[in-house]
């Protein structure tokens, strides 16, 4: 019997500007541990919005989100930040590293924030994660000096540093050329095989085909 890592009940989301429009309609879903789920759909169907609701970054919604047995809906700001730090790893469409820091430091920051490990251990772990992404040779370069594909690999290493319960990715290959897309593909494949729980929003059918389950969205609803 596999455990539900994430459970969402009746999520409704409205945008109020310029007019009040409903983006998500009564979305309920549950994701099990080790599952690799792709969310697909046309632009504007609400798939990214859904991801940000599930990720706890967006708190203005109706419904309940339960992650790892904790009801994150309604948690206070500090507890939410702490929860996100410990249990959720992010990969964005536009790599989003801190440009003044080295690749290694970028990977280390979430772990330093968590403060479960000593500095040396964090550094060692970060190095391992970079090695896993085949980025260890660039560890001490400023992240602003890396190419797009390299930055995305560093970002994935960063998402993994705290051994999160869920990895959330918002179009991780959306901004990359085909060569880099293949590399990132393979990394996600490998992560899935290692038993990580992954939720990825994507346009890419090849990418989605590798996942265990595809959630098709249209007009704020999940197609069944």
């Amino acid at each position, binding site marked *: 019997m596999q455990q539900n890592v994430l459970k969402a009940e009746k999520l409704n989301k409205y945008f109020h500007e310029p007019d009040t429009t409903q983006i998500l309609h009564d979305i309920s879903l549950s994701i099990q541990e080790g599952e690799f789920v792709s969310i697909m759909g046309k632009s504007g169907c609400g798939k990214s919005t859904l991801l940000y609701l599930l990720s706890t970054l967006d708190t203005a919604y109706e419904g309940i989100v339960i992650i790892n047995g904790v009801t994150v809906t309604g948690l206070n700001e500090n507890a939410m930040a702490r929860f996100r730090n410990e249990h959720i790893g992010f990969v964005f469409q536009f790599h989003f590293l801190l440009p003044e820091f080295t690749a290694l430091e970028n990977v280390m*920051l979430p772990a330093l924030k968590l403060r479960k490990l000593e500095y040396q251990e964090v550094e060692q772990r970060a190095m391992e994660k970079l090695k896993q992404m085949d980025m260890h040779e660039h560890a001490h370069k400023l992240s602003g000096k890396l190419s797009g594909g390299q930055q995305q690999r560093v970002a994935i290493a960063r998402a993994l540093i705290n051994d999160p319960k869920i990895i959330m990715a918002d179009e991780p290959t959306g901004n990359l050329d085909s060569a880099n897309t293949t590399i990132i593909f393979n990394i996600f494949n490998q992560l899935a095989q290692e038993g990580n729980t992954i939720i990825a929003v994507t346009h890419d059918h090849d990418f989605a085909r590798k996942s265990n389950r595809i959630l098709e969205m249209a007009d704020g609803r999940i197609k069944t």
Partner: protein
Amino acid sequence: MKLPVNFKIMKVHLLSRKRQTIVAMLGVTFGIGMFILMMSFMKGMNDFFEGIMLSVTPDIRIYNDYKTDYASSVTKQFFGEKQNNWIIVRHPRPKQINLNLKNASGIIEDLRKLNEVHVVSPLVSAQILFNYGPVQLGASLDGVDIREEDRLFGLTDKMASGRPENLLTAGNGILLGYKLANKLNVTTGDMVTATAPSGARLRFRVVGTYKFGIATMDEYKAYVSITSMQQLLGKSRDYITDIRLKLKDMNEAAALAPDLSRKYGYKAEDWETVNASVKAGNLIRDTFTYVLSFTLLLIAGFGIYNIMNMVIIGKMKDIAILKAEGFARKDIVQIFLSQSLIIGLIGAMAGLLLGFLLSYALSKVPWPEDEWIIIKHFPVNFDTSYYVVGMIFGLLTTGLAGLLPALKASRVDPVTILRG
């Protein structure tokens, strides 16, 4: 380096835009530096004026102030206690007035027993004229117990020639202000003639000259012994017009003076009342300096506010990432507020150093030659309390200037930025 992660981020942020950081720091540095310089100089000025003032003002002066209200004495004398008539006397004038203190020796002895009192110096004073050929020079001639007077005003340190004690040994000796001596064209050993208001004349031998650095003392004042003065005025040996006191703590003067006045029935003035204008001048200078310095720091504060605001606008993406990584609002505030505070701290410390160097340099600048005020260099006071105030000012303004942008940064909504 194993700084907490928020401070590590702060450090990287500050170092990655060195020029901006240094410009912001310089703003604080100049603000604080000028504050220190101005406070030190103003305080030096105040001290200098106060010193001059105190060098010629006793802590308390007891004297017989003549009264202009004779109404009760007239009515009582001519009409008895009960009166049914209006009596109007215009411009009453006394027939005879004695400005001396009755039972002066008793009062002096009594005062010497008081704990608070350090020095008691009796005085017989009158306006007299010195003859220099056909020219007559007016001056205030003070008959004093020169040893007490020395303890009161530190005459010994101010002698240009001779010693105060010479008054005791020479019969009819006189100490002149150096300017008065110059005008009379006399030096130590020469004779001068003093004419009292009554017309009585007495010849004195100059036994010393002094230099206070204040025109009223150096040009219009001379000292003789009490007995000489009593002789010149044709008064008896218990004729004393003023008693001047030096207290162990001069700040008690204002409180003690009214008590003494009530006790002896004569007017008692404390130094603060006499020199109220000097005090007011000090207050005005202090206020002015604080206002100006505060303005300087405010400008530095606006500079920091501007820079931090721009930094935060440029760092929106970074803030969003940090939030997504699990940094809470208070972490974001800490990261950006600490940047302002570090700018403030280092800027203020450099400012204190700058202020000290500038004030030190100023204290070595010669004062323009002036025959009224005796002072060699610009007066500067190196009071450490201004350095403490400067530091607190610096941290407070930079803290406030950094707080608003930091709070703004903490309110950044990561979703809107991460979605592009």
